């Protein structure tokens, strides 16, 4: 039934970077995929049904969705530079949008994934890029 987990042996050159989509990384890819799915669906519904109500918020939703999709693919395929770029943009986005949404509620009449630092999603959008960057750093060397 349940099998014992062995520690990964350093295969290949010891200085080569480890793949980012295996082990704990697979969990990151799964959660990123989940957010890619939900953010795209939400942005799609918002833009299709009520774009005129809050165009800026909905375009930000769409931007967040695209970044989650690219981050998912980049982490799964060990494209480190792209993954670092996505996680950094995400962290910047959630901090900026989170702060602005609290200071000026009128600017964001409807919620985006990043409003209130991702409070509507259990603050996962805030934790996720930090975890991603940490994981990318940890897998730099085998």
């Amino acid at each position, binding site marked *: *039934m349940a*099998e014992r987990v062995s520690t990964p042996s350093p295969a290949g050159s010891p200085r080569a970077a480890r793949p980012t989509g295996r*082990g*704990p990384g697979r969990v990151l890819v799964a959660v990123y995929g*989940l957010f890619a799915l*939900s953010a795209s669906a*939400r942005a799609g519904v918002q833009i299709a049904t009520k774009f005129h109500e809050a165009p800026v918020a909905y375009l930000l939703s769409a931007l967040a969705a695209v970044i989650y999709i690219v981050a998912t693919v980049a982490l799964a395929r060990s494209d480190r530079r792209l993954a670092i770029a996505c996680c950094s943009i995400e962290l910047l986005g959630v901090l900026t949008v989170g702060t602005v949404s609290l200071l000026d509620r009128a600017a964001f009449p409807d919620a985006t994934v990043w409003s209130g630092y991702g409070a509507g999603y259990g603050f996962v959008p805030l934790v996720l890029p930090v975890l991603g960057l940490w994981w990318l750093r940890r897998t730099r060397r085998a």
Partner: protein
Amino acid sequence: MTPHGLGTAVIIAGLLAAAWCLVTTLRRRAVGIGELAAMAAVEALVVAQVAVAVWHLATGARPRELPTFIGYLVAILVILPLAGLLARLEPTRWGALIATVGCLVIPVLIVRLNQVWTGVG
């Protein structure tokens, strides 16, 4: 959503399955046939819940945000099979953690489905 009992059953089953998978994760084991069976049981309840929701829609009942509601219905159907597949692809404790997260998403989606149906939140 009329059958509150079914929704509650899905939430409790999802939390129990999540707890089991979390224990497996903490014991540093990969998911086995037991965890997959538990996830399948939750999925059976989810399918029943989605069938009830579709029947309500077919008989003319309308949630406040129909597209969102349908999106959540599709999502709740595919989450556990995808989580199970990923958990099998990663036969380590991290696969068990993926299964845990997948099981936890189910109660969240049931709550959101209820909110969208009644127009709260």
